[in-house]
């Protein structure tokens, strides 16, 4: 019996194995490992309670993450129809496996979403959580701008966040290689930008 024949028969017989299958299992470590894994997953899957069924949000998040990574394409209907012929086979043997995998994946995606590393300087500025993350002196500056030129406050805040992101990236770059002259120039430029923003905001020549 070949491994392909064994897998085909495994689908038909399920947990029970015939003499031929037993003999193949004894001689083939790959198929033996497969059966062991399936049995373990099946046992664990039975322990899953109905209350642990992931909410639709988890499935949506998983789908979104897979699309962003380019692992899936096209509409959900197309995907369902493409894989429809395989679902019957997988339903029988891999539903517990799929459920355990997707629950674990969903938990992983949820944790990854809160601890995702910064992508780039500009995007870091946009992704900073919460408006309260700005330093207190920046807040004071924005309050000053808001008092003098209310229509300009939003522009100053946006640009100040951009500059702070620049400083963060530049500091990180300079810290990683203190001898890098280019990194030092980034840092000087970033602080020059910040100084300019402050100077413009506090320019007493403007009413």
């Amino acid at each position, binding site marked *: 019996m070949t491994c392909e024949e064994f897998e085909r028969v495994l689908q038909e017989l399920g947990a029970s194995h015939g003499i031929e299958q037993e003999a193949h299992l004894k001689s083939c470590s790959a198929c033996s490992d497969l059966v062991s894994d399936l049995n373990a997953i099946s046992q664990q899957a039975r322990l899953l309670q109905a209350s642990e069924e992931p909410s639709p949000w988890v499935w949506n998040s998983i789908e979104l993450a897979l699309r962003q990574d380019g692992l899936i394409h096209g509409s959900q209907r197309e995907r369902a129809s493409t894989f429809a012929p395989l679902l019957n086979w997988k339903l029988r043997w891999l539903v517990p496996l799929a459920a355990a995998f997707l629950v674990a994946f969903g938990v992983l995606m949820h944790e990854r979403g809160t601890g995702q590393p910064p992508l*780039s*300087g*500009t995007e870091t500025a946009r992704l900073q959580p919460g408006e309260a993350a700005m330093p207190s002196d920046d807040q004071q500056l924005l309050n000053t701008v808001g008092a003098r*030129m209310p*229509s*300009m406050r939003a*522009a*100053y805040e*946006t*640009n100040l966040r*951009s*500059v702070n*992101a*620049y400083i963060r*990236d*530049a500091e990180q*770059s300079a810290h990683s290689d203190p001898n890098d*002259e*280019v990194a030092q*120039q*980034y840092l000087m*430029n*970033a602080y*020059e*930008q910040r100084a*300019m*923003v402050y*100077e*413009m905001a506090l*320019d007493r*020549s*403007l*009413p």
Partner: protein
Amino acid sequence: MYRKQSAATFAVVMVLVLTAFAADETTRKEFHFKVGHRASVSIINQYGPISVKPGPGKHVVVNAILHSNKVEIDQSKSGNRVSVFSHLLEGADAETGQVDYEVQVPADASVTLHSATGPLHVEKLHGDVILEGNTAVVDVRDLSAGHVHIKTLNGAVTLTNVSDGHVEITSVSGDVALNAVSGSLVHVNSSSGKIHYDGEFGEAGDYSLTSHSGDIEAIAPAYASIEVVARSVQGKVENDFPLQPEHTSFVARAGSAFAGTMGKAASSVKLLSFSGKIHLKKR
């Protein structure tokens, strides 16, 4: 009796109409100042455009259109220094506080313009030019022999045909475009704004175009004589020129950093971006 009532009604209506017009009345004002050689002219106008061009003789002529009576113009002259200031009165906002300036100055005058909204326009001067605008669009053209300093938050900056001086531009998120700009020093410092240069990198100058995340595109002729370094920490770097390698501590990395010389390496060119793309293009 009927006539008296009609006259009274007409008078009331006229008073109301005149009052309404007075509240939103635009006013045109003109100021003349006689100045000497290398005068200094400063215009501070929070809301509204300022345009400066050369005029004949040694006169500074200021034409202003005030959009309401909630703004007035304070002007002064001390020796060779002229100051014009848009004074916002109580209740003024971006509309009612707007003043439109058209100014003529001697070509050798130094000009300082401040405006939050702008736009700011300067052309054909030989003196120093200092422009500062928060969201103001800045347009400078045909300047020579002067120092140009420009600061904006997110106002776009365009320089055309500026030569023989220093150029220093700092903009947080405004795009900067330099067309036919050359000088002994040309520095652009941007955070997220794009930088576009199309010129010759001439006059044995020091050219530095740096940004945080804004893309940098520099277009130069095949005969450009430059020593160039370019690097992007997270972005892509492209070069259309065959560069001669040079002995330098700068580490070249394919796709993210390159360095080398062209011609006699008369000018120094730095193209640095943290996460933006850099492209040195051949015209």
